[in-house]
């Protein structure tokens, strides 16, 4: 059974990619609909399996680590697999309606979409340092391809910048992998962690971790390495922006977090952890401020991603040399933040796409009076905004609550200021958009009304991010399941 679930996750997206490569956009839509169904079922199945039986390691090709590639299938991984299934389905469904099927080059949307999805699954489940590198590249290249698809000069500039940043990040990561392999002779994360436990902090490994984390931070757009993100996320088509902001940046963060949690205690240092936390805080403040200053709707959302990503990096200081309980709180908080930001940001980008489609301009002022005619998309945008502001009862709030607890519990009270200020700053840019939409203009319906299915999708995502706050205990309980060490299938 597990075997089939793994096949479903890792290989069928690749199959959909090849199939959709052969078809045109309309047929690709049918293949994708079927593929989405399969993926959602498989992800749910694996999630349920893990929720019941606990996590396990899976050696691909029958070869266990360190010789073969090992997958780590645990609660956290399947939680993200499920998140990916939800968000990517929504984006795929939205794209199927949103994207113009008559442009010849749009047929390439689906294969890139499926390659992206399979790369994401590979990263969530990956337990091998080098395999993660390949997975990351799969994600980056397909993401760049999606941004550039059919774009003009500005889009190409954005995607080139994105590509170069992503490549630089990957190389830094790969260099770290090379150093670690030179040191330990193993590529398995779990294997290296075990070796580290026996032989703490050997010379030279600090740089390896630093390189890997820096490279991954660049790919995650941590301040001040964030400049590539807003142009790329802002200019891509909305379903693509949603995928990029909700999932793609999380993949590199996920690897960085895994590495930190496995290796940080032995090769990390307090100063490094604080530095990363500080950069994260700067990202929260600076990203929010820039988001507030933007004139284009999607740029606001893109800069908001920079700010929201900042929170994630509080994981580093809040898990370094703190008690087990505080560390767990921080990890749960960050996990929730990843999930709720994923859902909310996807909802926001999709809703923003609908709004732009409807008012015919990407500028914020153009929204005046739209609240009368497009309540659904605006409502979804608003709900998602509530989650970004981390107000209750959304998932963003529960995440912030846990992080507050962790900061106070670890005695690192200075992060409290960041968490609270970040909430207020995000309120500033979110309400700026509400404000624009509440302005009254002469009562003329000059808006294009997009199909209902386009409006329903962001609403579902926004409601999910809302519901996450109420059900976070259930979600987190799967994530924190005890890991079954000897559990090969």
């Amino acid at each position, binding site marked *: 059974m597990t075997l089939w679930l793994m096949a479903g996750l890792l290989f069928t997206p690749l199959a959909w990619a090849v199939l959709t490569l052969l078809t045109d956009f309309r047929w690709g839509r049918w293949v994708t609909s079927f593929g989405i169904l399969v993926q959602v079922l498989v992800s749910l199945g694996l999630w349920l399996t893990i929720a019941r039986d606990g996590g396990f390691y899976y050696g691909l090709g029958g070869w266990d680590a360190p010789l073969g590639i090992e997958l780590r299938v645990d609660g956290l991984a399947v939680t993200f697999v499920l998140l990916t299934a939800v968000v990517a389905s929504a984006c795929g469904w939205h794209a199927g309606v949103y994207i113009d099927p008559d442009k010849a080059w749009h047929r390439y949307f689906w294969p890139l979409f499926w390659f992206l999805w399979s790369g994401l699954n590979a990263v969530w489940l990956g337990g091998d340092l080098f395999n993660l590198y390949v997975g990351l590249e799969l994600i980056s290249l397909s993401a760049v391809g999606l941004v550039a698809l059919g774009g003009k000069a500005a889009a190409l500039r954005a995607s080139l910048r994105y590509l170069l940043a992503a490549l630089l990040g990957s190389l830094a990561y790969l260099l770290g992998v090379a150093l670690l392999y030179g040191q330990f002779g193993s590529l398995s994360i779990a294997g290296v962690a075990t070796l580290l436990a026996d032989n703490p902090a050997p010379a030279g490994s600090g740089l390896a971790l630093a390189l890997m984390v820096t490279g991954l931070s660049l790919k995650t757009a941590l301040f001040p390495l964030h400049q590539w993100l807003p142009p790329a996320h802002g200019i891509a088509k909305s379903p693509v922006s949603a995928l990029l902001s909700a999932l793609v940046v999380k993949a590199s963060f996920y690897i960085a977090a895994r590495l930190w949690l496995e290796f940080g205690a032995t090769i990390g240092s307090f100063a490094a952890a604080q530095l990363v936390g500080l950069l994260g805080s700067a990202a929260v403040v600076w990203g929010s401020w820039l988001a507030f200053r933007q004139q284009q709707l999607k740029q606001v959302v893109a800069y908001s991603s920079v700010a929201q990503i900042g929170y994630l990096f509080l994981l580093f200081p809040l898990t370094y040399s703190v008690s087990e309980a505080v560390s767990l709180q921080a990890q749960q908080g960050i996990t929730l933040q990843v999930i709720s930001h994923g859902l909310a940001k996807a909802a926001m980008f999709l809703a923003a796409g609908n709004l732009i489609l409807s008012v015919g301009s990407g500028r914020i002022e153009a929204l005046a009076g739209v609240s009368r005619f497009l309540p659904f998309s605006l409502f979804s945008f608003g709900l998602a905004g509530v989650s970004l502001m981390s107000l209750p009862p959304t998932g963003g709030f529960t995440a912030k609550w846990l992080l507050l607890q962790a900061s106070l519990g670890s005695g690192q009270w200075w992060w409290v200021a960041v968490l609270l200020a970040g*909430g207020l700053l995000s309120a500033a840019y979110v309400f700026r958009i509400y404000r624009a939409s509440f302005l009254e203009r002469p009562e003329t319906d000059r808006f294009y009304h997009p199909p209902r299915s386009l409006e329903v999708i962001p609403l579902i995502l926004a409601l999910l991010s809302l519901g996450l706050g109420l059900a976070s205990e259930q979600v987190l309980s799967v994530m924190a399941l005890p890991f079954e060490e000897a559990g090969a299938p």
Partner: protein
Amino acid sequence: MMLSVWLPVLALMTSLLAAVVIFALPEQGYRLRTAVNLGAALVKLGLVVVMVWGVFRGVDYGVSFTMAPGVAFVLKADALSMMFAGLSAVLWLLTTVYAVGYLEDSPNRSRFFGFFSLCVASTMGIALAGNLFTFFLFYEMLTLSTYPLVVHRGTEQALKAGRTYLIYTLTGGAVLLLAIAWLQGVAGDLPFREGGHFTENDPALHTSLIGIFVLLVAGLGVKAAVFPLHGWLPQAMVAPAPVSALLHAVAVVKAGAFGIVRVVYNIYGVEASSVLGVLEPLAWLAAFTILYGSVRALWQVDLKRLLAFSTVSQVSYIILGICLFGPVGAAGGLVHLLHQGIMKITLFFCAGNYAETLGIHRLDEMDGAGRRMPATSFAFTVGAFGMIGAPPLAGFITKWTMGTGALDAGMDWVIAVLVLSSLLNAAYFLPILHRLWFRDPPRQWPHERRWGRLETSAWLYWPTLVTAVVTILAGVLASLPFSPLSWAELIVLREYSP
């Protein structure tokens, strides 16, 4: 028993569902929307009445589940919850009727009534919250659902007021969140409990408890419009009259005051608070706010702004009342939660009636309005005298009980504050009454509309009269069971002898 679990949830859900349904209704669905609105308000009133009866007999209504690691979502009905829930259920019904008439042909009614219902759902949640975490949840929901109401008109001025409102309340919310998180770190997840949690009085915790208390009051004080955190309230007056009525009489300011009551009574406990020495400064702050609000009201020329400053002053009576260490004074403060609600909503309804019917907004336009609109002016007079504290109206009951309580507690200076405040109230209300009844009406009103037989639309007319009558009844019948005063005494009894 299942019912005891589901009643609070149902009470919450009626308005939440109403909100969802209204959002989904088309703008033109006038009748259906009104039916949903009134139906939900009536159902909710029924549920609350059942729960009031149950709480009186000592039934425990409650439901809880773990929301995030370490914190629970708790709904619980105790005597204090029911006081606030009852207030909001009654006034919601009246305000809904009023708002239907008031917004008869203005745009965006779906949006308005949707958020209106959300706002009431949040108020219900605040009333029924069983711990600070749940309280905070609805407290922030209230902020969000009132913003669209404040900016409803969509004018520059409304949007500016909305921004001020948000800056104040969201910052207040952040401070409150910090306080709650800190408290959780110090003492864990504390349910609201009669008598409070810190009776053992551990000296090691003193400093942090005082710090937390200050933050809690600062966070809640924003909504309760305690000086110097009151700046948003007069600005928010640009909202439509029913919104002002709801913001001032029921939802927002009361949520803040109610939160402070919860903190003092059900988290810290009166005794622990007074041992910590936090009640006395709070009492001084409240007293100052009472006088400050009244003084500012003297200089207002806009009727709604005057009422807003009057609210700033009146809400602090509640806070002053609970800071009086003793059951009688506390009852005085608590009963004002209801009395101020009824009186202030009457006054705002009247202000709305004048604005809708005659186009009157400023005080100097009110000359002789009593002859054109006798019923409204009668209601206004009742409300004004209530505020001043003239017997036998509701306001008198409050002031009398509080005064007695202050003497009991040995805080004689409070009497001086009460007297001075009453004089100030008289100083700004009596000139208006004089204008209403004894000046000659102008030849032409600023913007007059006619509605057949009644002096104004029936939707506006009856709610105003009903609240005026309730103001009288609450004073005259104060000693009957289930009157606001008896209910407040029941709460105090349970608090002081848990």
